[in-house]
């Protein structure tokens, strides 16, 4: 038991997005300002009450934290940024929850902002991708010497391994992007809103086989922000707080590969039968996966949804292919997922757009795509970190 128990001690009190789009021709800083201003307004807080900032996917591709503080005339007591990788959403919110409870900040804005306008190959694979060429291999399994490049290729390697190990394929995987596009069709902010079927999916071109174009997230422009403060202060804000009741950090090591759970046997992972057990995030929150009303996950590639479902124990290894059929992960299904449309269809704001949607779901603000009686929603990822929120 931690001697610094954070269960229900921090809350999200404000959320805000910029416009999302593919050719907004506005910079990350420009878009980030919209998201921060909208989130503060949503919380009913003033600029002076914001004294902490954590930028996810920061410099050199996203919004730089120093510059943001300058441009917005903030007076920060503490700030930080993660380098330009997408997966640190939960980490940033966890750090913010710790900061406010440790008395190092009153309210912390956590955000990501990206702008890929006009760039055809925006540093995600290829010769401009310095991260993909880093010492001892890129963060997504890149090895440019053999043409292995881009985050999607690492996901394709996992998909092929999964298909071979469990005997399934694209026909089953199609259910994931189809479900999230249906959700996006009910979301006016989503970039891609036209629904498609399994035949459309199969006809979409391969990017890195076995993944089709429709297995890939969007590359776009936009920003999303959430404001974290203590639960005590949260009760004085404009809207009902959304509490953080469980947290689990981002794991790393030789049995981890960014897009796979331990045991799947990709990169240098040992190959064994993974067992989820009851993960620490549930123990902290005092719930089990059965209590979750909605699940959100980092769906940069559709296969990550299967990996996440199995990693967190919503189904056993090899079962996600059947679990995701027949509308089970759609609105009205047993476990609605990524009701905003996800990175696959709403937009790729590094998972921060998902945090905004989770808060809106728990406040009952989602209209046509509202999860009925949503009380507990989880953010849980293929790469092993999680947050559990409740209203």
């Amino acid at each position, binding site marked *: 038991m931690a001697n610094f128990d954070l269960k229900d001690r921090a809350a999200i009190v404000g959320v805000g997005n910029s416009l999302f789009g593919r050719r907004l021709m506005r910079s990350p800083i420009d878009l980030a300002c919209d998201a921060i201003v909208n989130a503060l307004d949503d919380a009913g807080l003033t600029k002076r009450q914001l004294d902490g900032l954590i930028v996810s996917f920061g410099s050199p591709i996203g919004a730089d934290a120093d510059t943001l503080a300058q441009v917005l005339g903030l007076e920060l007591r503490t700030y930080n940024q993660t380098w330009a990788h997408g997966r640190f959403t939960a980490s940033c919110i966890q750090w913010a929850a710790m900061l406010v409870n440790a008395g190092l900040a009153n309210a912390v804005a956590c955000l990501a902002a990206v702008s890929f306008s006009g760039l055809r*190959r925006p540093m995600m694979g290829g010769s401009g991708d310095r991260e993909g060429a880093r010492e001892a291999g890129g963060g997504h399994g890149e090895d440019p*010497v053999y043409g292995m490049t881009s985050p999607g290729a690492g996901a394709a390697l996992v998909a*092929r391994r999964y298909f071979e190990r469990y005997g399934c394929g694209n026909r089953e995987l199609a259910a994931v992007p189809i479900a999230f596009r249906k959700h996006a069709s009910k979301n006016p902010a989503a970039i891609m809103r036209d629904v498609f079927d399994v035949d459309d999916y199969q006809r979409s071109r391969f990017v*890195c086989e076995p993944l089709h174009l429709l297995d890939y997230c969007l590359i776009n422009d936009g920003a999303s922000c959430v404001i974290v403060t203590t639960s005590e202060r949260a009760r004085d804000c404009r809207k009902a707080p959304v509490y953080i009741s469980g947290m689990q950090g981002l794991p790393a090591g030789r049995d981890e590969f960014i897009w796979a759970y331990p045991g799947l046997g*990709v990169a240098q992972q040992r190959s064994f039968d993974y067992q989820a057990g009851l993960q620490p995030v549930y123990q902290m929150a005092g719930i089990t996966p059965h209590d979750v009303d909605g699940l959100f996950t980092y769906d940069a590639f559709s296969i990550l949804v299967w990996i996440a479902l199995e990693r967190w124990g919503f189904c056993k290894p090899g079962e996600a292919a059947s679990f995701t059929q027949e509308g089970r992960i759609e609105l009205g299904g047993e476990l609605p997922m990524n009701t905003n449309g996800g990175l696959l269809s709403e937009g790729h704001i590094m998972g921060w757009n998902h945090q905004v949607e989770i808060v809106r779901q728990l406040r009952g603000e989602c209209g046509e795509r509202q999860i009925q009686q949503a009380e507990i929603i989880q953010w849980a990822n293929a790469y092993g970190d999680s947050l559990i929120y409740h209203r």
Partner: protein
Amino acid sequence: MAETQYQKPLPAISSLNKPFWDALKNRELRLQKCDKCGLIWYPPAPLCPDCWARKFTWVQLSGRGRVNSWVVFHQSYFKGFDDELPYNVAEVELDEGPRLLTNLVDIPNDQIRAGLRVEITFEDVTSDITLAKFRPIEIRRS
């Protein structure tokens, strides 16, 4: 004879991986083996990732393994690969344990299968660099 310009990315040689690339140049596949616990690992490290022993030996491996997973690129990200689309990248699990990314040669992409037995073949791409590619091990007919 003038060397034609090699267009694909070349490895970044570091203090850690230089013995690996030097060995390939000599037509040998070598990885580090811990003198204390016997682990063979990849990528190269300054100490054994398991027991942190500093003493290890760059041992020569069999060069044989099996296909663990693979992908086929239909989109080009590097100019040097433009003419080879669609090209494969395979993850080969060596008989000694570690997995290497590579390209499979002497096999059409649609014939690649998980578990396929493969062996190393060395490809000199510049005067300094030799790559480790893999090809199917031919099954002798009885």
